[in-house]
């Protein structure tokens, strides 16, 4: 075992490997920082370049893109209020207000450290507990998936903002949007009015970009009172890198809980970073002593959301390394890159290619360190983005969104959808509907429907949901979560009855 470990380490710590990984890390961060571009896209573009490399070298480079990508989304989330990747939706809730309050450096530092620790924790779990966790993940049937999604849906309560009813409406609109297009079982077209526009359905990425990016960019150019073009950032910025690190570590419970949520969600094939990001945020808010501070620039919120999404990187590798089952599209591409070199990833990987498996663990840790160094070194540069005048930022980011939406499926109709959804998103935002529940609905709706129908096909008896233990536990947790939310909303309402009224004005 030690031999294999050293062989792996030897390959990762070669000079050229480290150089390529550094480039990969930078590329991942940049791709994820641009709204509309995703980590998946960056990895697909990296893939051909890794073929000329040794297998472990290639995988290491891709891992560095992957880890960098989970952090890069933070940058546009904090500075522009637009999630740079689907897995940084919750990051916008607190990082953006914090930046707007004049602490953009702290917001970035917090997110970067949280991402770093999240990745490291997930890698440790991966090393220690991959095989048993992977077996559990594979055993979960449609009943458990459905129950998990029901539980995840209850976090809408944490995302509703000023009005519970509007939050619920937004969430259900999201569920509804996701049912348009071919049905997930038979491909029969539903609610498409026989138009080319709706026939292929509404792709998640297009909805995300439209709802968050387009609406946010449009509201950037509203003119309230004086025309403000002032710099967002004060002249002297102190990132307080080390102080923030201590701050992150001083809340170990939050960090650890959020990372574990990321690992577990990441280990479930098909779930992914966007759910982990929102779920970790929700759990942090619920267990906080000051839940009312969330959404206004709370450090715990930034830490939870970023640790949560970054930890899915290690989590997703669990079923892949232990069983050869990819947890996400990105993991699948990683597997593919190994396959080209004639290494088939499966249950025998750790036995047949131990050096490779250990090398991947090492590469994860090295990637997270590189991400940290690159981010800390270049934070000042990223903050320059906020100095660029609006007239350049807004139209250019719109163009990036257009490219991202188009490159996904090469369909021009997706661009029309982007425009329509952007308008709807802007309208909803203007009327003070919270947008995150809508996105959550779009993510969870198809998974819920597919698994509900699958469960009933496997066993027409409804009670199976309650007799399978894990499913029953998750459903009970969902019920508790609803009760808890209702109670805390009532409490909050009593506490700030006069304050909420103020919120309603435009």
């Amino acid at each position, binding site marked *: 075992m030690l031999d294999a470990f050293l062989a792996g380490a030897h390959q990762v710590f070669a000079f050229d490997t480290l150089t390529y990984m550094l480039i990969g890390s930078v590329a991942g961060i940049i791709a994820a920082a641009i709204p509309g571009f995703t980590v998946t896209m960056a990895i697909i*573009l990296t893939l051909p370049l890794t073929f000329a490399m040794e297998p472990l070298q290639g995988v290491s480079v891709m891992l560095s893109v992957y880890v960098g990508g989970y952090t890069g989304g933070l940058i546009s989330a904090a500075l522009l209020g637009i999630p740079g990747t689907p897995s940084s939706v919750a990051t916008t809730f607190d990082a953006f207000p914090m930046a707007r309050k004049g602490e953009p450096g702290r917001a970035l530092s917090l997110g970067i450290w949280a991402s770093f620790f999240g990745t490291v924790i997930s890698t440790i779990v991966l090393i220690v507990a991959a095989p048993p966790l992977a077996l559990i993940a594979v055993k979960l049937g449609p009943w458990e998936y459905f129950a998990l999604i029901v539980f995840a849906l209850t976090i809408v309560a944490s995302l509703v903002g000023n009005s519970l*009813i*509007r939050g619920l*409406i937004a969430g*259900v*609109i999201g*569920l*509804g949007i996701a*049912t348009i297009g071919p*049905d997930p*079982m*038979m491909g*029969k077209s*539903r*609610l498409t009015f026989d138009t080319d526009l709706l026939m292929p359905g509404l792709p998640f990425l297009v909805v995300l970009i439209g709802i968050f990016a*387009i609406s946010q*960019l*449009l509201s950037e*150019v*509203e*003119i*309230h*009172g*004086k*025309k403000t073009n002032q710099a967002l950032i004060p002249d002297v910025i102190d990132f307080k890198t080390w102080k923030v690190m201590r701050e992150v570590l001083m809340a170990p419970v939050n960090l650890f809980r959020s990372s574990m949520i990321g690992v577990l969600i990441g280990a479930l094939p098909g779930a992914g970073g966007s759910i982990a990001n929102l779920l970790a945020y929700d759990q942090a808010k619920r267990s906080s002593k000051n839940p009312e501070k969330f959404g206004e620039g709370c450090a715990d919120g930034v830490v939870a959301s970023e640790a949560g999404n970054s930890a899915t990187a290690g989590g997703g590798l669990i079923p892949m390394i232990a069983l050869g089952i990819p947890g996400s599209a990105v993991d699948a591409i990683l597997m593919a890159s190994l396959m080209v070199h004639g290494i088939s990833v499966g249950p025998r990987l750790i036995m047949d290619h131990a050096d490779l498996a250990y090398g991947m663990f090492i590469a994860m840790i090295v990637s997270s360190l590189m991400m940290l160094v690159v981010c800390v070194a270049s934070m000042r540069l990223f903050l320059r983005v906020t100095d660029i005048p*609006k*007239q*350049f930022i*807004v*139209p*250019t980011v*719109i*163009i990036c969104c*257009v*490219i991202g939406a*188009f*490159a996904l499926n090469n369909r*021009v109709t997706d661009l*029309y959808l982007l*425009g329509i959804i*952007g*308008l709807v998103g*802007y*309208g*909803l935002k*203007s*009327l*003070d*509907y919270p947008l995150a529940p809508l996105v959550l609905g779009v993510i969870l*709706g198809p998974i819920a*429907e597919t698994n*509900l*129908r699958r469960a*009933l*096909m496997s066993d*027409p008896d409804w009670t199976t949901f309650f007799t399978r233990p894990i499913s029953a536990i998750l459903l009970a947790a969902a019920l508790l979560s609803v009760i808890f939310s209702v109670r805390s909303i009532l409490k909050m309402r009593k506490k700030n009855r006069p304050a909420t*009224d103020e919120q*309603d*004005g*435009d």
Partner: protein
Amino acid sequence: MTVKVTEAAAADTGVSAASRARTELARLISYIVFGGVSVVLSSMAAGLPTSRWEPLGAGTFPKLVFALLAVLCLIAAVRSIIEIVRAGGLEGVGAAFTQWLYVRRVAIGLFVLFAVYLGVMPWTGFSLASFVFLLIAQLMIAGVSRRTVIQSIIAALIFSVGLNLLFAEVFNVFLPRGVLFAG
């Protein structure tokens, strides 16, 4: 600009109940729109054929979801009406709406421009459409002066033609080509 400032100040102090009623009216309209649409979609979904392979057909889930949405919108609408009545009527809706549009004039202009941009892209291709979009949008936000025009032209060229070249040549990703203009 000054008009806006004084109005905003007035809104803050005196007529907050009326302003709340006006906002609530806008929301009421949105509840009615969403509710109406969801009733239609729910009944459409109910009409989808069932399947002999499974207890739930293609229509069941959307039917339930849109029915739930309709119920939520109904509740919200009722609460909204109560709120409006309690706040004491709706004077000044017209003026407030004009004000609302005025604040968002650039945003609305930008969206219209965006819609036109997406609409013409299949004919003009990505590069040309993007160039014109970027140029107009930048000038719309920054105002026209010699400096902004020069800056905008440069930025627009980089992010239209430049991006297109980057994606086509380096990444092998082809952005929409136009019928009239291939670039």
